[in-house]
Structures are given as C-alpha cells and as structure tokens.
C-alpha cells in the first residue's frame, strides 16, 4: 500500500480523477442550467425568426448572428437573452450610448418568440423560464422574507434596497425594478444583461430567484403603509419635500399671517 502511494504515477492519477470529477460535475451542472429549446419549436418558427432577424438585427449582429463592430455575437446567448432584450424593448437598440435604454416594445409576443427560437437554434443557451418559476402561483408560493434578504445581499448595492435603481460609472445605471415582468427579472438574473453580473443556478437557485421575484412583486402590490412614497428615493426626496412643500407651505402661511396686520 505504502509503496503504491509513493508511486509518482499515483499523484497524476489523483489529479486526473479530481479533474474528471470537478470538470464532469461542472458539465452536468451547466447542462442543468442551459438547455436548448430548439427541439421544442417547429422549423417554421425558426425560419420566421430568421427572417425577422435578417430584417431587424443583422445590420449590427451580422447575418449569421456572428457579431460585428456594432453588436456582439448572439451564438449561444439563448432564448432567455432574446426574450429579455426584445421583450423589454431594449433591442433593437435606438442609439449607442453608455447603456441601451428601455423603450416601447417593437415586436409582438409571437415575433419575439420567433426571434428567440431562431437565436436558440444556433447554439444551446439559457432558455426562457417556465411558469414553474415565474407563474403567478409560483410567485404566490415564494418566500418573500428570504427573497428580501437575498435581494438586499445580492441586488441592493446597484438596484437600491427598495428596487428604486441606482447609478453606476460613466452614465451606466441599474434600472428601477418596479413594473418589470417577473420573467424578465428572472432572465436578467440568468443572462446578466449589459452591466449586470450573471447569477447562475449554483449562485442563486431557481427557488432563490423565484423568492426574490416574489418579494419584489409583493412590495409592488402592497403600497407603503405610511402613505405616498415619494418615489422610494429615501432621504433625498424627503429632504427636498420638507424644504419645498412643508417649510415652503409654512412660510406661505407666515406671509399670510404677517400680511393680515397691514
């Protein structure tokens, strides 16, 4: 036994075994995260998506989605990415700038699905989350308390503790989360659009993601118990409000009281 352990080949074997286990494990895990949706949709949908792609996206992303100077390659970004970018109106981009802005959605849901199917058919990538995670019943069963805690730990440093958004460097920003569809929040966590980091399933499990969305939706559906929220911007809005409206209003009253004597 002792001799066998000292054999130089033993070290190599151990390393090999370690690599196989960790690499294989990673491959299994990432397969669990990314799954191709190409098999689930018809060729017709993919073709329709390709037509839309060539007409609307190819000028920047290249006619085979291989990317170019203006836009990145879309091979392997998956259906989730397309659904997020097109579904929130960010794509097709209107102008280049520090960050691509949200704007009214350009395509119908059917067209968005076609585009997503086409891009997903190029290479496997993250798929659109199922109702199991972002459906109404799923969100209703989410743990808002845990979601809130996860949100504060993972998201609040950019999106603010109440999801009001925040500034990043050089004109980039983390957008406000109020009114964003549940599936788009989920997709954003999976794909990490623009400046956002990726929160993969080993980082935040699908249950965690659902809990975070449940929390955000709960806060959105239940307005502040204290009355008007002043944009959820905290002390800055409160300070401006007290100076302009409260003290301003009282000064108007003092002027009225002072004028009475004249």
């Amino acid at each position, binding site marked *: 036994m002792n001799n066998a352990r000292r054999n130089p080949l033993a070290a190599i074997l151990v390393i090999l075994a370690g690599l196989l286990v960790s690499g294989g494990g990673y491959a299994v895990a990432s397969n669990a995260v990314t799954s191709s949706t190409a098999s689930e949709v018809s060729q017709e949908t993919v073709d329709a998506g390709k037509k839309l792609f060539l007409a609307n996206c190819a000028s920047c992303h290249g006619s085979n989605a291989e990317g170019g100077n203006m836009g990145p390659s879309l091979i392997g970004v998956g259906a989730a990415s397309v659904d997020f970018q097109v579904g929130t109106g960010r794509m097709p981009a209107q102008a280049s700038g520090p960050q691509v802005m949200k704007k009214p959605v350009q395509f119908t849901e059917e067209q968005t699905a076609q585009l997503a199917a086409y891009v997903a058919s190029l290479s496997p990538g993250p798929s659109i989350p199922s109702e199991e995670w972002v459906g109404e019943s799923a969100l209703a069963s989410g743990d808002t308390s845990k979601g*809130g805690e996860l949100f*504060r730990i993972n998201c609040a440093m950019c999106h603010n503790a*109440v999801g009001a958004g925040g500034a990043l460097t050089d004109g980039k920003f983390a957008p406000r989360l109020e009114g964003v569809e549940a599936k788009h929040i989920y997709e954003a966590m999976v794909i990490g659009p623009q400046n956002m980091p990726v929160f993969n399933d080993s980082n935040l499990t699908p249950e965690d993601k659902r809990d975070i969305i449940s929390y955000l939706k709960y806060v959105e559906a239940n307005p502040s118990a*204290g009355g008007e929220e002043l944009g959820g911007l*905290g002390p800055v809005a409160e*300070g401006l409000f007290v*100076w302009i409206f409260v003290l301003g209003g009282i000064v108007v009253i003092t002027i009225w*009281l*002072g004028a009475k004597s004249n």
Partner: protein
Amino acid sequence: MSNATATAKKKGGFLAGTANYLDERVGVAGILKEFGRKVFPDHWSFMLGEVALYSFLVLLLSGTFLTFWFQPSMVPVIYEGSYAPLKGAEMSVAYASTLDISFEIRGGLLFRQVHHWSALLFVAAAGLHMLRVFFTGAFRKPREINWVVGFVLFVLGMAGGFTGYSLPDDLLSGNGLRIIDGMIKGIPYIGAYTSSLLFGGEFPGEAIVARLYSLHIMIVPALILVFVAVHLFMVVIHKHTHYAGPGKRDDNVVGYPLMPVYVAKAGGFFFIVFGVIMLIAATFTINPIWAYGAYDPSPVSAGTQPDWYIGWLDGALRLAPTHLEFMIGDFTLSMNILIPLVVGILFLVVVALYPFIEAWVTGDKREHHVLDRPRNTPVRTAVGAAGITFYAVLWAGASTDLIATHFQLSLNHVLTSMQILLIVGPIAAYIITKRACLALMRKDREIALHGRETGRVVRLPHGEYIEVHEPMDEYELYKLVGYKAYEPMLARPNAKGVITLRSRIRAALSRFYFEDRVVPPTKGEIEAAHDHGKELH
C-alpha cells in the same frame, strides 16, 4: 391690574378668584405685567424661529410617545410580526420594536412619521431662521452671543437628528453609522481608539444603539431645551429687532404687546405648524424602515443617503478627491476623509464666529436694533450667498447618484462638475450678489432723489417733453435712505508708531467690505433734487 382684580373679586367669578389666589401667592400680576407688555414687531420672517420651536415641541411630544414602545437593544430576535416580507427574519430587538411601532401599535406609524417629519422641519426652520438673522444683520451687537447660542442649537439639531436616524437599526441607518465609523477611524492616531470606545469594540458591536438612545432621548434634548431657554431669555433681554421704518429706532421696538395679541397669534401658529406636520405625516411616507430590512454589515444599498441636514457632510466625503492617502511611518493619513472633516469644521467655525469677525472689521460698537436691508450691506449679503452656494453644492453632492440617474448623466461627470462648482460657485455667487446689491442701492438712491418713474410723458408749454416722476412719501423714503454707509478704515500706526500686522489685516478686510459702496442721499441732496423737479413741473 389690582383694580381689575378687586372689582372682579366682588363679582366672585371663578376665573377672577383663581387669578386673585395666584396673584396673592406668586405675584402673577407682576409677571404678566412684565411679560405681557413685551412688544413684538410683526413680520413674516420673524416667525421662522417660532416654526423651529414648535417643531421641537412636536418632537418632544411624539418622541415621548415612541419611547413607550421602542427598545434600544441589539439582542437578535426572530421577527414574528405582521409585516410579511420580514417574517422569520433575524433582526435586533431595536429593529423589531420599530417594526412593531409601525405595524402593531395603534397610531405608532403616524407618530413615527410625525416625529421624523418634524425633525426634518426643525432643522430646516432653524436653518432658514439663521439665514434671516444673517442677511438682516440681526446678529450685531448686542446679539452676537445669541447668534452663537442659535448656532449651537442648529448643531444640536443635527446631532439629535443623526442619533435618532440610527436608532431603528435598519439597513439604511446602519450604512450611515458605518460611514461615521469610517470617518472616525480616518482621524489619525485617535481614530481607531475612538471608534472602539464608541461602538464598544469592533463595528457594529452590540452597544451602539443603546448608547445613541441615551444621547437621543436625554443628553441632546436636555441640551436643546437649555439652549432654547437661554435663546428665548436673551430675546426678552435684548427685545426683538425691527425693520427700518418711520418711528422705528435703535432704542425702541415697534409692534404689538405679547398679551393678548402675540399669545393668541403664537398659540394659533403653533397649531398651524402642528397641523401641517400631522397632515404631511398622515399622507407621506418617511423612512420606510420595513422596506430597508434589518441591518447586516454586508449589504450596502445604492442610493444610501443621510437625512438632509447631514447631507452636506456626506457630499463633502463624496466630492473629496480620491487617492490622497499616504503613510507617515506606521500611520495612514486618509486625506480623502480628513479634508472633508477639516473643511466642514472650518465652515462651521466661520459661521459661528461671523458676528465677531464683522464687528472687528467695522469697528462698530453701537447697539443695533433696526435691521439691515440685505442690499444695503452688499459684501455681507454676497458672503452669505457664497456660503449658501458652498453649502448647497456640498448638499447636492450627497445626491450625485440620483442626479446622474434622473437626468441621464454620467455619475463621473456629475462628480467632477460638482467639484468644480464647489470652488467656482461661491466666487460667482459672491460677485453676482455684490453687483446686484450695489445696483439695487443705486436704483434706491435714484428713486429717493427723483421719485418713481410714472411713465407719464408731458409736453411743457415751451415744447420740452418730460417724464413725470412721482416723489416718494416719507415712509418709503425712510426705507430707502435709512442706512449707514461704512467707509474703509486705513491701517494706522499704534502708540509706538508701528503699523502692526493686525491692523494691516483689519484695514485689508475693511477695504474688502466697504471699498465699493453707495452712500445714501443726504437730506440736502433730496431737497435740492425736489426743488429741481419742481422747476420742471
């Protein structure tokens, strides 16, 4: 008074009986006579200090209510209250009891909001009151000490606010405390020891909330009460100032007596201020601590700001140039923390000492009870405007991130612009304000001499066209010419025949203050101008 009580006694009314009872035992009549006949002039700007006083009363009332339920303990508990998104979360007793005040106790949330809104209003009203006193020169002899007392009250207001802001132990206030901790640790040598002493060990420790609570509900309010008493007592001693007008002199006060006019007015005004605070507190959320979650040192939220009155210090930290740390031996000097600290303290010192600085420069030893029109003291007004600009840029500096996101600007550009504005803004404000004041004074002089332009053009019999000027009446004229134009002093040699550095500095400052001036027209000039006008009519 004694006659009145005597006749009333015969009637045997309950009120008169009580009054007589009190008068015979504690001399109520004398007190009422003394205080009831105190005269207060009437002007809206004289009510700003009152607003601060009334907000403070509301603070005391609502704060007492909150102390019945708030528990300043940092012992961890599991929240089992009615706010769903925090159910089962671990938090401190302080935070849990604040949540209970907000969600379980009847009227608790309303009173929390009343307390917080009135705190913001207290400091804001005190600040505005200070500006009124500054720009009208009400801090001049004999009121310099009262200015310092008022200044201390303003700083105590900030201290009271900050200690209260940190009590709920939510994420926002914890982040704020962390910044204070960092600032303290940035002070060379004593920083780490001070922080350890304050927090009872490493931040956040388990002691800070209870310590801040003692400060917040005992030390700070007691000090504020004492200083308010001194402040008001001095107002009684000095009597109130009044604006220039006919019959208003440096040796009298023109206005209404305290009893009954001002007691009724001020009492009514208290309820107006209270009413406004209640209305705002009942309709607008302030500091929704439930949305921020329990404090945990790891998460830091974007858009973390202090309440407005600490904002200028937060702004100073944000605007300080980065990469300025260096080492001396084993000590790190964090200039990006020390510069804001020193600049902030210097700013406060200048504000506190301003009356003495101005008195030294003018050499004016007379008592002043008639207020200045801000335009008639161009340099003081301009210095004030520069100070406001400096403060305002620092203040805005605390919300660089919100300015960037809301106006779609680059955060870096906003920061750089603010840094430039912090230097250029006060200088520009100074020049513009001083020029505007001098121009207004020249206009006043012109109007005093030649009357107001009526826009009515008349053709005289010999063919000349003139515009008819309406002469000012005595009241308006008094306002326009009733000020003293100081002249710059020269540096003079002392008894030994030496021109000291001190006297040179004083002369230079005097020149800075009074080199540009507009002298009010003399009686002779006005009469001459009027005679000239009559010839034309």
